[in-house]
């Protein structure tokens, strides 16, 4: 039963995305369709135009496809963008609302699509911060510095976690005790994922706090403790064996000496 359910939920990950040529919107909005075809929303999420714009994707009649009764909202206004994105990305949207750009109704502030684009949405990465902050902020400005700090903090934390996870993965197959490091890695990964969402608040202290949690006793430090204990055990083994053989050979020498003195 559980296997069937798991397969059911995992199915979209392995399935092909729907054919965009069958989506009626693309027959007129072909430029947007070209961009959308390369987007993570289409390729991985298997979304269609209507997931953001509303309407009926396969209705050939434009009036029917764009009927308000079908939920068609057209191009979301500046005030609606965050709400549309938040349908799926509530975490980042929540942090965005806490950050310096939270007044998105203000023309001077960016919205989600300023950084992530609208149709050709690519997989978000820390590199995006460098590319997009420069659209509005000077290279030596305080805002760029803040972005840079967040980016470096997260990058270093993620690389540290990746290194530890690789060590644990490579050794856990033949050393069972290292499986105890797995919960620490999982916890740290979860915190790091939430830190990715928290970048939208552009709060350096918050990110530093989260990365400290990733590195802490319940994260990387915990996992490193397990790995360290294993290596310590490896270092100790030859020493114990040496002591065992000293004991054995001293006794053997005693037996030899005793035997030599026998009549």
């Amino acid at each position, binding site marked *: 039963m559980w296997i069937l359910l798991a397969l059911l939920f995992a199915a979209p990950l392995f399935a092909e995305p729907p054919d965009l040529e069958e989506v009626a919107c693309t027959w007129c909005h072909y430029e947007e369709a070209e961009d959308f075809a390369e987007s993570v929303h289409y390729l991985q999420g298997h979304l269609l135009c209507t997931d953001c714009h509303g309407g009926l994707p396969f209705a050939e009649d434009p009036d029917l496809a764009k009927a308000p009764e079908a939920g068609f909202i057209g191009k979301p206004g500046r005030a609606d963008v965050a709400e549309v994105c938040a349908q799926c990305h509530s975490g980042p949207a929540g942090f965005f609302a806490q950050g310096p750009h939270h007044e998105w109704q203000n023309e001077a502030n960016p919205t989600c699509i300023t950084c992530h684009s609208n149709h050709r949405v690519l997989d978000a990465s820390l590199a995006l911060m460098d590319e997009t902050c420069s659209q509005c902020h000077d290279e030596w400005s305080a805002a760029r510095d803040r972005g840079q700090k967040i980016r470096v903090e997260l990058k270093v934390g993620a690389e540290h976690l990746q290194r530890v996870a690789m060590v644990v993965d490579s050794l856990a197959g033949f050393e069972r005790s290292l499986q105890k490091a797995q919960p620490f890695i999982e916890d740290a990964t979860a915190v790091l994922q939430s830190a990715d969402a928290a970048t939208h608040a552009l709060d350096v202290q918050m990110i530093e706090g989260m990365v400290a949690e990733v590195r802490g006793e319940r994260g990387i430090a915990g996992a490193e403790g397990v790995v360290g204990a294993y290596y310590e055990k490896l270092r100790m083994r030859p020493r114990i*064996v040496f002591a065992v053989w000293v004991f054995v050979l001293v006794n053997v020498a005693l037996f030899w000496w005793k035997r030599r003195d026998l009549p």
Partner: protein
Amino acid sequence: MKKIGGLLWAWFDERLNLAPLVAGLEANLRKPVPAHVNWLFTLGSAIAALIGLQIFTGILLLIYYRPGADTAYQSIVRIMDEVPLGGFMRSLHVWGADLIVIFLILHMVRVFVYAGYKKPRELTWIIGVLLFAVILIFGFTGYLLPWDQLAYWGTVVATEAPASIPVIGPITREFMLGGSEVGDPTLGRFFALHVVVLPLVLLKLMALHLFLIRYQGISSLRRTDEPDPTPNEIRAEGGEPFFPHHVLRDLTTTYLVLGLLVSLAILYPAHLGDPADPLTTPLGIKPEWYFLPAYQLLKYVPEVVGVQIPPLFIGVLVLLPLLLDRSPERHPKRRLRAIGVGAVVLGLIVLLGLLGHISETRQTIFGITYHFDIQGMPHGEVP
């Protein structure tokens, strides 16, 4: 202290008349061993020490082990992760089993070379062969107990072979497994055999084996149709008293073997794989190394024949002094034909074991990678 000891001795001696018994034991211990007795004659006592340690570590494991398909694996995990020195005790037990088989084979080869099985010591040899069989069954039943993937599937493969014997095969298999496949009843049966039945049989056979060795003494190299040398003759030929001379040799070997065992257990701790999963067959299932010759043999001959060869081999060993080697010679130099036959048989067994070990693997030899097929034959691959 000496006074208390003396008082206790007097108390027991007065009631049980121990003096003649102790004098008899002492005389037996002082009996000389023949001059040809060397370090190879200390393997038996090393095996006895290893068996003693197996019983000790086995009892410690038994405190925490919980037989049952749902509990066995978790109890082993607990032994390894939570019980102080639990992992080390398990490693001693696992490596101890391997060393017992190795030293048992060496011991039997030594007895064969020095013809210690010949008249009048046939019974000692037969009991020794039975001990060997019991040790192998110990290994077979103990292999399943951790209930991990290797244990489960190794037992599945090993118990499939006997089913090919006509008529009694399927019944035997079902009796062994407690059903049509390896499961909870199998684990229960193997556990009961491993911790109750086999130890009782082993201890009784060992006691009888040791009694016969002490009672009859160690065999000389004289022909069987000549009388055994008297203790005075042995002394005159350069023989030493069993105690303390030979016992000190025994102790030396035992210490070295136990040192080896502890080192192996520390440097290469016993492995525990994933829990048994009857729905997922892992790759490269092979039995314990001492069953590899029998496993490999099944690949070359029809299963119904191959499965009967190992028990027949044990039967041949039992019959060796009774029917197969009745020549009166004991000295290895005058038994070259028998030793040659023995060497060929042993060589074949080792070869089969090596082929079994290397089959279905890839090995790189002098820079060229070979794939060894199911029969152990190499097929060169482009480097």
